[in-house]
């Protein structure tokens, strides 16, 4: 092939690659146009707008949408995040500990709480007072929601931290130990600060997950001042027999989650440049 003169006829290709690509792209546009036409013709726009985007119903959501629902969503997510961060770090350290039972306990925890649907954890939390008579989760519904999110989030955050801790080169610990630092001092002074920097992007994504999962608070049977976005939207939707409040709640989630997602990928990009 290589020694063929360049003027030779190309092998019986009826269409040049470029032509093929043009046709393929044309077909894709055609399918798109057909799909749009079908949707435009058959969808009942009036009814859709009435049910999902009714302005006067949307107006009813204000200002509680922000002052109560979004605020509570952030309280649940932030509280759960702090819980998950601390417990996750502890689990990650146990996971790489020299003491074997610690490794087992951490592994067991992580496997269980990552393997179960988060909803199941929330349902169990509602039964805690029955299981442990006299026991009450502090801070009421806030406490319960934060506990549920924290327990689940910790399992994922532990794996994020473990990856970060193991990504710190062994030479760092060796340098610290050779200066006379104890094993735990070397972890605290040298390894953990570097690991935390490395896990900022995945941790931001974890926070986004918790923001979304805070909708599970719905199943704790909350009401009044404790409702978060999903429950808030759902209640209003039932009240007006109209889905608009759910759409409104959805848009409110996106206002928070999409910028955070971009932030995470920007932080990731910066980390890439620093290495």
């Amino acid at each position, binding site marked *: 092939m290589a020694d063929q003169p360049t003027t030779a006829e190309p092998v019986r290709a009826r269409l040049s690659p470029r032509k093929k690509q043009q046709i393929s792209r044309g077909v894709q546009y055609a399918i798109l146009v057909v799909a749009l036409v079908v949707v435009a013709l058959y969808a009942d726009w009036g009814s859709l707008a009435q049910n999902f985007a009714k302005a006067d119903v949307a107006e009813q959501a204000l200002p509680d949408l922000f002052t109560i629902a979004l605020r509570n969503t952030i309280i649940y997510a932030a509280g759960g995040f702090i819980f998950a961060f601390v417990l996750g770090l502890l689990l990650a350290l146990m996971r790489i500990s020299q003491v074997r039972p610690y490794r087992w306990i951490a592994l067991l925890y992580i496997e269980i709480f990552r393997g179960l649907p988060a909803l199941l954890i929330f349902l169990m939390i509602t039964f805690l007072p029955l299981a442990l008579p006299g026991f009450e989760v502090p801070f009421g519904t806030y406490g319960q929601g934060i506990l549920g999110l924290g327990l689940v989030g910790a399992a994922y955050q532990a794996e994020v931290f473990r990856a970060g801790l193991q990504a710190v080169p062994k030479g760092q610990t060796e340098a*610290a130990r050779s*200066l006379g630092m104890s094993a735990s001092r070397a972890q605290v002074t*040298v390894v953990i600060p570097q690991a935390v920097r490395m896990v900022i992007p995945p941790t931001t994504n974890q926070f986004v997950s918790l923001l979304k999962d805070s909708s599970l608070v719905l199943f704790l049977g909350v009401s009044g001042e404790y409702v978060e976005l999903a429950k808030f939207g759902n209640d209003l939707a039932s009240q007006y027999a109209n889905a608009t409040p759910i759409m409104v709640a959805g848009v409110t989630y996106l206002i928070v989650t999409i910028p955070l997602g971009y932030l995470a990928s920007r932080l990731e990009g910066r980390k890439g440049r620093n290495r």
Partner: protein
Amino acid sequence: MTHAIELKDLHKYFGKNEVLKGIDMTVEPGQVVCVIGPSGSGKSTLLRCVNMLEQPTKGKVFVQGVEVTHPDVDIDAVRRRIGMVFQQFNLFPHMTALQNVMIAQQRVLRRGKREAEVTARENLDKVGVGAKCDSLPGQLSGGQQQRVAIARALAMDPDLMLFDEPTSALDPELVGDVLTVMRKLAEEGMTMLVVTHEMGFAREVADRVVFMDGGVVVEDGPPSQVIGDPRHERTQAFLHRVLHPEG
């Protein structure tokens, strides 16, 4: 007189792989001993056994008369007196040069911030990177990083220093700066155990040169003998390869 370092019948296995096969060796206070030998011969492992970054499988290691292989020894206390410089520098990348040199003084020796900073600046000046105090390691050249690493070790006032191929990761034009610092240290009387491929340095600075191959000490003596007039065939072959890389 107690030896600065004494290795007695030192063996080290990694799994079934015997990397050190019975090393006997001493370093006297104030001596500079250079360890040379082909890659994979166990030089790094030997050095790392001195401050117990590697646990010897068999045999004993004494540092200033203290058996560091003894299970009851306070290894952190022993390591405080042994400075170590790595091939890859291993500076803490999240701290400035100054912080790198201060942190162990503060956390290990419990020196106050001011005292630690004064000592850090003195040592950074001494190795010629005093102007780079506020730079992060990532902003420094390899030669500057390695000198900060030396300052970090010196700030702990060690009694002896271990160097594991301190110039092997450097661009050739930066090797000289680091060797100059090491020469100065040797002149000041620092006890040094240095793994190196810099034959010029070994010849001029070392009191003794140890040639290792395959986990054993093949030849141990003054540089004029081990480098200048090696007895063993293996030493001769190695030196020929190092000194005439083209041929």
